[in-house]
């Protein structure tokens, strides 16, 4: 029944000059659907890790300890100012290879391409998150912090209980912006053969030359995915809104 519906749909689209025949070949259909799942996994994993890294870096950036703030600054500048694809190639093709050679006698290299994509994108986007959060942290009036100090908050407690909750509200639109970009950035995984949706599409269209058809599916898919991120962001903004603070 489902098969019939699918083949009927493909026939109808063929009438419009769109060749979606790959959906009828079980192996390619499975690969494509698996690609969808991998992209969603990649997006969720990188969102989570990049936000953690971003928060840690932001805390370091505003730290009064010189060595902490300087090393965080150096890291942000380095990752932010070099292309992600170059970082990925460098990590996966160079660093990973060296690691493999070192670990040759210790049971081999356990790190997968998926791991490398998640870590490179997370570190890259973490630097952007850190700058967004820094804007929020530094927007907090000094008197608020003085008030917190007078109530007996230590420096660490001020940071986690006063500064971060407020900074998050200031930085939210900018963070969501970063996250939308992050979802799109997961497409670079295809460069090192992680089976995300872009990779599976490339593998299909290099055999069938149906670039336009797959590109349409990719656009719809990424459009929907980034729209969801956007919706989530708006919901959070409403949810975290404080009466009397900003709009």
């Amino acid at each position, binding site marked *: 029944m489902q098969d019939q519906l699918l083949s009927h749909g493909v026939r109808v689209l063929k009438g419009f000059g769109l060749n979606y025949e790959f959906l009828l070949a079980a192996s390619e259909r499975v690969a494509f659907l698996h690609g969808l799942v991998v992209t969603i996994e990649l997006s969720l994993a990188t969102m989570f890790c990049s936000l953690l890294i971003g928060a840690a870096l932001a805390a370091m950036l505003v730290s009064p300890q010189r060595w902490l703030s300087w090393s965080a600054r150096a890291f942000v500048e380095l990752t932010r100012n070099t292309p992600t694809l170059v970082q990925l190639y460098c990590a996966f093709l160079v660093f990973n290879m060296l690691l493999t050679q070192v670990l040759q006698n210790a049971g081999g*290299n356990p790190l997968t391409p998926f791991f490398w994509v998640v870590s490179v994108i997370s570190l890259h986007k973490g630097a952007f998150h850190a700058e967004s959060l820094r804007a929020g942290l530094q927007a907090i009036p000094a008197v608020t912090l003085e008030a917190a100090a007078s109530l007996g908050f230590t420096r660490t407690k001020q940071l986690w209980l006063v500064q971060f909750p407020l900074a998050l509200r200031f930085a939210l639109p900018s963070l969501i912006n970063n996250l939308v970009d992050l979802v799109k950035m997961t497409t670079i995984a295809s460069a090192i053969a992680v089976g995300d949706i872009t990779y599976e599409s490339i593998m299909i269209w290099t055999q069938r030359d149906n670039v336009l058809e797959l590109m349409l599916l990719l656009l719809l898919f990424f459009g929907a995915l980034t729209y969801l991120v956007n919706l989530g962001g708006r919901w959070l903004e409403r949810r975290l809104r404080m009466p009397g603070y900003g709009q």
Partner: protein
Amino acid sequence: MDMRQCRQHLSHMDMVFYSFPASWRLFTVDPSALKQSLFIEENMNAIESVAPSSLKSNNKFLLACAAAAMLFSNGAHADATWDKIKQRHKIVVGVLLPGGPFGSLDPATQKPNGWNVELAEDIARQLGVALELVQVQPSNRVQLLQQGKADILIAGMEWTPERNEILSFAPTPFYRVGGIAIVPQSSSIKHWEDLRGKEVCLSQGSNYAKPLTTEYGASVKGFKSSAESLLALRGNNCVAAVHDAILLNPLVNGNPEWQGYRTISPELIPGNSVVWARKGEQDTVAAIDKIVQGWHKSGWLIATEKKLNISPASPALVELHDKFKKS
């Protein structure tokens, strides 16, 4: 027809276009190229002259779109490529530079050289036109050809029934090549059958993906080009890398970096490398085919192979030389 409106619509296309991930743009048509194209203006005048006046005033956008569509269909000319070559006194050849004697960049001059380039140069010389080389990748060569960024392809592309559906070609092959695997010396893999269930690196767009998965049950990982695939093999991300024999043989034969590696034969799906052109460009492929036959007849290809130190020498070239010598 008001060109301003057309440009406005195109600039909206621009906005949509640039909101996609940058890496995708490589695979699509760049709207800025579309805008610059004189084709649109020409074709729109043509459409305008036949369209009823009510349509002209109401549906300017539709007309613009129809003009853009004509740009891609090329239906009006018998052989637009041949006309273009003659008109510009120039042929644009898409060449693959996989590294090694078949095509690479000279490290000193940054100029492309090797087998593919020699062939392209001789075609331009025999046609009496200037040559422009465009470097292509296996993953984008068909798109570059179809979009008119290249007139013909000399890119190690073997004849396949799928390519035959969408492109035209000069029927006489200029080489015969199949895939071989490269594995570390210590590897337990001795035959193609040993690859079952193992991960194999290749380049995106390689036509060895199909036989490897369907016949030998390997799981393939496609990288942007052979360079990344080979690096991934060195990083132990796959047990073997499968590429054209003409790329891998020189590595294990002469490159000190690849001394710890060996190859696996016999060649996988040996196929005829031919020169490709856009679908239906009969004049172009006829002219190219005559040149290729001439190469075989004179033995120029065998001499070029020798000149470039390509080893082992291809038996197919000798065979074709014998065949065309008589005719």
